[in-house]
């Protein structure tokens, strides 16, 4: 990364808004432990600088066109979250019961009581041994940093500027993790700020399952926390990762998160993501094919109701030949909620024989709900197969009639069809218990909430190049 050169090309920093200024103050309040590597200090400083110079999101900024960050005003004087105690019984009631290694973070800090002990290869940055320090040095910030600068998200820069500690997951060569790793991030609802940083390094031939689960404890506060997360993943040659991420926080929470993945030769990434809208929920996935023969399958589901927002930006870079990517996203948007799906596929000139598919289907269940779906294809190679499709629709009349003709009332029929529309994607989940838990969660959502199942003619905002 040559930030010195880059900086010269950029204009002088604009006047920062109060949130930006405050964000840098928050960075200054952090105390790093002695064990932290010098590389972290450098990264923090560089990224604070990048954050300072980045253009603040607004309607004229292409990648923030549909999503307002107004909600961040609430945090212009918020402090760092001070980890609270979890309510009695919270973990057993609200978390998945999995045969997994569970690590629980409460407001950004590891909760030892709720967590399993860390197996070999997993450690906090602040407790890194020599090998871990070396891995952090060679990968941290580099995966997110491998995207060209104009595409970099300023919140990723902010995350680095705010990283005082983080979690390293290292899966050594040819190691197959028997148990999934279950990372839980709990927001306890105070109007405060938390940062979460993960680095996953999978060596050649390694195999693992990782589940990231975000949720909140209480629901009363109009503004609960702002959480900024960044997970960087390096999947080495021939290694395979199943990654499931659930962003199911309370709607009063603001969450900006990113997952950056580099796939080396013959690597496989199987991703699944579920998000419920909140006052601000922006999720960026940046998946980079860096080695030939790599493949990825990435499915996602989003639900938004009330006046929630959910915004997915995915970007798949085919940098080298013979890689495949398959992406399917489905969403249901009701009430006055808003959803964004922006799927970018960038096929570099050298990336011949690429196979890329992307599909986004949406159900709009109210005439005040809004969905913005936009495929963004940039293809510079000539011998590739690339298919994309996006639809915004209502429930299928024929299916509704079929159910009714068996005595099922229209409201229940709509509920079943909406559920099925989403549930169809769940069938690909690798961990059976996760699938069952999500099915159950989905069932509850649909039975408690009418706004996701009514069907009124949709108002359509589709991307210009649909």
């Amino acid at each position, binding site marked *: 990364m040559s930030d010195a050169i880059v900086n010269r090309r950029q204009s002088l920093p604009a006047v920062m808004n109060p949130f930006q200024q405050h964000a840098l103050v928050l960075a200054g309040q952090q105390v790093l432990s002695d064990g932290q590597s010098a590389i972290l200090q450098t990264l923090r400083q560089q990224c604070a600088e990048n954050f300072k110079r980045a253009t603040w999101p607004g309607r004229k900024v292409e990648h923030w066109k549909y999503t307002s960050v107004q909600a961040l005003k609430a945090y212009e004087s918020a402090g760092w979250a001070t980890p609270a105690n979890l309510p009695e019984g919270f973990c057993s009631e609200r978390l998945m019961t999995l045969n997994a290694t569970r690590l629980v973070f409460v407001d950004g800090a590891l909760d030892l009581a709720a967590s399993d002990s860390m197996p070999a290869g997993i450690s906090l940055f602040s407790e890194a041994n020599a090998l871990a320090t070396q891995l952090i040095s060679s990968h941290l910030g580099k995966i997110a940093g491998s995207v060209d600068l104009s595409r970099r998200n300023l919140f990723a820069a902010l995350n680095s500027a705010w990283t005082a500690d983080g979690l390293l997951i290292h899966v050594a060569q040819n190691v197959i993790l028997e148990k999934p790793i279950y990372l839980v991030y709990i927001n306890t609802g105070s109007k405060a700020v938390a940062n979460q940083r993960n680095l996953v390094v999978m060596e050649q031939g390694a195999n693992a399952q990782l589940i990231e689960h975000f949720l909140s404890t209480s629901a009363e506060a109009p503004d609960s926390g702002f959480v900024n997360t960044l997970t960087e993943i390096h999947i080495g040659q021939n290694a395979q990762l199943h990654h499931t991420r659930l962003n199911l926080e309370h709607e009063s929470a603001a969450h900006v998160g990113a997952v950056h993945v580099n796939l080396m030769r013959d690597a496989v990434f199987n991703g699944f993501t579920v998000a419920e809208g909140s006052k601000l929920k922006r999720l960026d996935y940046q998946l980079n094919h860096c080695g030939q023969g790599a493949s990825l399958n990435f499915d996602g589901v989003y639900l938004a109701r009330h006046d929630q927002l959910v915004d997915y930006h995915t970007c798949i870079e085919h940098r080298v030949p013979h890689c495949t990517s398959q992406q399917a996203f489905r969403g249901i948007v009701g009430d006055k909620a808003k959803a964004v799906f922006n799927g970018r596929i960038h096929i570099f000139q050298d990336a011949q024989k690429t196979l890329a598919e992307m599909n986004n289907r949406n159900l709009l269940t109210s005439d005040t709900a809004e969905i913005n779906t936009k495929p963004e294809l940039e293809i510079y190679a000539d011998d590739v197969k690339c298919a994309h499709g996006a639809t915004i629709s209502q429930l*299928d*009349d*024929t*299916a509704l*009639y*079929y*159910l*009714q*003709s*068996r*005595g*099922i*009332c*229209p409201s*229940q029929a709509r509920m*079943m*069809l909406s*559920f*099925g*529309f*989403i*549930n*169809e*994607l769940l*069938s690909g989940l690798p961990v059976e218990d996760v699938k069952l838990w999500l099915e159950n969660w989905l069932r509850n959502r649909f039975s408690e909430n009418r706004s996701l199942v009514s069907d009124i003619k949709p108002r359509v905002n589709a991307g210009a190049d649909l």
Partner: protein
Amino acid sequence: MLEIHELFAKVEGKQILNGLSLSIKPGEVHAIMGPNGSGKSTLGNVLTGRSGYEVISGDAKFNGKNLFDLEVEERARDGLFLAFQYPVEIPGVSNMEFLKASVDARRKHLGLPDLSSFDFMKLARESSQKVSLDPAFLKRGVNEGFSGGEKKRNEIMQMMLLEPSLCILDETDSGLDIDALQVVAAGVNAMRSPARSFIVVTHYQRLLDYIVPDYVHVLSHGKIVRTGDKELAKELEAKGYGWLEEEGV
């Protein structure tokens, strides 16, 4: 059981049924044959209340109630059943869940107690065996990826579970091999009773060797142009519909 009187109906502005009358008594089996496009499926859709199929005039009384006053699901709960010519695939909704919801609705309407999940599963498994459908199909999405024959057997299974009083089978035999045809016919025959009636819409006389009808009607241009017994079906198979169309219209 069913009295259809001078029924005119249109689809997408096009008049399809042109004064159709039909009277069915409890326990009877009526076969309806007719060339493609004569309105056989339209009749089933109009009777079950599919939207887009509009009654212009005429009426249909089902067990004394005026059918056209009822919603689609109310007709079903009252005991009207249509086995679809083209059963619908609903990915993501399990067949079991779908069947349970249907049976729950019907039982509730009849004032019967809910079946427990356990009892229902047992019942569903038994029914699937009766139509030679592997119980694994109960866990799959409704008709999702089923072959043509599997879809038709799934329809018959639904009929068995719902125990309707009037069953309309819309070309349930089309595209079936002889084994599947026999399964379907056996399913229907097992359900024949003095209190239950059938309308068997078919293109082929073959089915009527297995399900022996009391009456055979020929539908042409949206009305019944000829009624006879099972011999009429044989005649039709041998001579085609041409002679009737010339005579009838």
